[in-house]
């Protein structure tokens, strides 16, 4: 899973957080500097371009003035007499004084004497700042001499002078001589630009701060969201992933890499009801630990699917094909000799049933893949629990119906009932008794309950199907002979479903309906251990329905319960009847059930009577109600 390591290791979270903030700070810092630099250069270029043009024009005028007074000029540059007065020089002073502004601090003309020293010809300054004619000027860099020699206009940037920003040097060539027209730009210029840039910078920084602030808030909220999510992903009791985790991340699971297991704790309701929920919870924690000790925490995904059901995704080992199966066996074996504490002194054994889907990626999604693991689990439980059952694809004609197909069948009235007669050999009986057996027809093919019941177990589709069955039976009985009795099977969930009970109640209000319906209920822990279900059964009996206990002897054969609900009849499990002649134990079980039933005045029905030999045996034991192929097939 992508987020698993991130969520597990806080270091990654904090590191990513700080790294991102650092990146934002760096970007903001350098981008602001870059923008500042470029904007400043651009503003400077725009604001000085005009000045440079004016300087170029003034240079031409200076050149003309000097050319007119060339003799005087030549004499001056040879004599080097300081402070000589001449109207020609005053004229040059006046000319360059026009360029002095608050931004141009100094404007002056220099020539180079025979000793390669620069000396003043003219200076626009006044007072103490004004240089005298022929006064020496010590230049502060080689750039001056380079500008003089190359005769190219040059810009000098002053980094270390407090009052000057740049100096513009404009060489003026007059015949065989060159003079330098120098202009020092005041720092005021850059101060003005800086003020403008400062405002832009403040805006940029504010913007960055706002972005950073929003980013931090966003990050904080995201962090909080993920922490909340993380909490919701963890089952509080066991500390493993909850179903929420699966719901959110099932789409990211690469099912090719996993083997999917559905694990159920056997008879857990009994534990809960016997020892209480606190012990039940404690047992669940111990079970989780036992399984966690076997799996790899960094590879396998262990989820509490609900109640006592777990989902385990075992990551396949590319080098060892049998790794997953071995691990499943290991998990199952770890329960074999283990005792689970229910108090300081008491321990009980616990077993688990495991349904395995070895090829979950063959399904469209996780839900479908899990359904198959659940079907395998259902089979494991049907085989007596404490078992591992691997789901195997059946041949096409044995294929299970999907939930969608079952729902479609209900909507399109493709749910039908087959009826198998229950023979009553009692002397006085006139009633014709049939068991309604549900079938689904799809593409002309008839599907038996084992092809769809497991798929819809515990879903609302199962309820829909029961309602459909009730509707069919009601229609069959309505307006039919009064001596017709129809049995139908109800699951524990049906008996706990209010809407189904309401339907049965409404039928009972109509004349001669409930008295002609027998409800066949399989005796399971879910029925026996729930007081409400027992009450419901008794209530239905009072409404006129006959109550049959189906598959009696297969698992829960609770005689006390049988007496409690006052069942009208019990149907001995088919597996006992079909082996009654070959298995002595089956014979003894059947005999004892019949004896008890006779004592308790409860009818007994033998189902799966497929041969005359079986019929003779059960008849000899005192049964006079039979159902099976020996008499008729469902039609």
């Amino acid at each position, binding site marked *: 899973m992508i987020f698993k390591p991130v969520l597990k290791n806080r270091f990654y979270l904090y590191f990513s957080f700080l790294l991102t903030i650092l990146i934002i700070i760096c970007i903001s810092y350098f981008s602001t500097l870059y923008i500042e630099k470029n904007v400043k250069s651009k503003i400077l270029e725009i604001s000085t371009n005009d000045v440079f043009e004016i300087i170029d024009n003034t240079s031409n005028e200076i050149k003309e003035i000097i050319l007119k007074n060339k003799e005087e000029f030549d004499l001056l540059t040879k004599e080097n007499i300081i402070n000589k007065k001449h109207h020609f020089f005053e004229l040059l002073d006046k000319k360059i004084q026009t360029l002095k502004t608050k931004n141009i601090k100094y404007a002056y003309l220099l020539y180079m004497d025979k000793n390669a020293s620069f000396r003043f010809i003219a200076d626009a300054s006044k007072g103490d700042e004004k240089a005298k004619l022929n006064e020496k000027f*010590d230049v*502060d860099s080689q750039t001056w001499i380079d500008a003089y020699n190359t005769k190219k206009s040059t810009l000098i940037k002053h980094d270390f002078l*407090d009052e000057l920003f740049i100096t513009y040097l404009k060489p003026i060539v007059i015949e065989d001589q060159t003079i330098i027209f120098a202009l020092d730009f005041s720092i005021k210029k850059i101060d003005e630009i800086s003020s403008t840039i400062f405002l832009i910078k403040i805006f940029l920084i504010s913007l960055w701060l706002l972005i950073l602030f929003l980013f*931090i808030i966003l990050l904080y909220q995201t962090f909080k969201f993920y922490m909340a999510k993380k909490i919701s992903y963890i089952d509080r009791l066991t500390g493993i992933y909850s179903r929420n985790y699966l719901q959110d991340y099932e789409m990211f699971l690469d099912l090719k890499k996993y083997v999917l297991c559905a694990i159920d704790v056997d008879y857990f309701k009994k534990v809960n009801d016997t020892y209480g929920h606190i012990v039940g919870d404690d047992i669940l924690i111990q079970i989780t630990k036992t399984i966690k000790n076997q799996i790899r925490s960094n590879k396998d995904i262990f989820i509490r699917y609900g109640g006592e059901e777990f989902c385990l995704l075992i990551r396949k080992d590319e080098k060892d094909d049998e790794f997953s199966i071995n691990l499943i066996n290991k998990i199952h074996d770890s329960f074999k000799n283990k005792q689970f504490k229910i108090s300081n002194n008491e321990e009980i054994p616990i077993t688990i049933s495991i349904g395995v889907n070895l090829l979950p990626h063959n399904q469209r999604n996780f839900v479908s893949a899990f359904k198959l693991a659940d079907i395998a689990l259902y089979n494991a439980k049907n085989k007596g629990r404490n078992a591992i059952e691997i789901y195997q694809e059946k041949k096409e004609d044995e294929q299970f119906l999907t939930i969608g197909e079952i729902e479609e069948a209900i909507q399109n009235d493709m749910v039908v009932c087959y009826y198998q007669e229950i023979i009553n050999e009692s002397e006085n009986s006139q009633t014709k008794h049939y068991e309604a057996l549900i079938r689904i027809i799809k593409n002309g093919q008839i599907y038996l309950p084992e092809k769809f019941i497991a798929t819809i177990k515990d879903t609302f589709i199962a309820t829909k199907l029961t309602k459909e069955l009730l509707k069919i039976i009601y229609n069959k009985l309505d307006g039919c002979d009064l001596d017709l009795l129809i049995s139908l099977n109800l699951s524990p969930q049906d008996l706990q479903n209010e809407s189904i009970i309401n339907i049965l109640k409404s039928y009972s209000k109509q004349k001669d309906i409930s008295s002609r319906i027998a409800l066949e209920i399989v005796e399971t822990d879910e029925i026996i251990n729930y007081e409400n279900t027992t009450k419901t059964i008794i209530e239905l009996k009072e409404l006129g329905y006959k109550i049959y206990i189906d598959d009696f002897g297969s698992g829960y054969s609770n005689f006390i319960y049988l007496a409690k609900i006052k069942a009208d009849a019990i149907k001995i499990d088919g597996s006992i009847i079909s082996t009654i002649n070959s298995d002595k134990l089956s014979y003894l079980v059947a005999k004892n059930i019949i004896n008890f039933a006779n004592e308790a005045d409860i009818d007994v029905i033998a189902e799966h009577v497929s041969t005359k030999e079986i019929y003779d045996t059960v008849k000899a034991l005192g049964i006079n109600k039979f159902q099976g192929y020996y008499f008729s097939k469902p039609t």
Partner: protein
Amino acid sequence: MKIFIILLISLFPLFSKNIYFVQSSSNIQELEAKIVSQIATTFIDKPKIFISGAEEKLIFYFSKNLTIEKNCNNADFIYIKKGSNVDINNCIHKNKIIFTDDKHTFKNNKNIFGAFYWFKSRPNVKISSKKAKSLGLKIPEDYLKFLD
């Protein structure tokens, strides 16, 4: 909150008015003290300096490199600040090296050996070749460009 404050502090440099364009204002007095001290140590070994009319801060900068004397008679290098009214006549004719920061004083007083002053906003150093000769000082090659 702590992180936010740290971030604000880290961004503070951006608020400074000039980051790249203009260097921070150099300390003029420190520069002045450095240049004059350099000149003094060029001509005198372990010079003792008397500074006339200087602020405490400038004296402090000088004290980093030179020994400060409160009496000009005990000093071998005298630095006269512009506008100073301290009477140093007793010391002027005692073959001491006298330096000033006033261009005009340097031009008009033949006893002054040299000057450090700001001209056209640039630091300027001038040394009187005549005074150097009268003091018997040999001007190093690096200083020839400063001769007036």
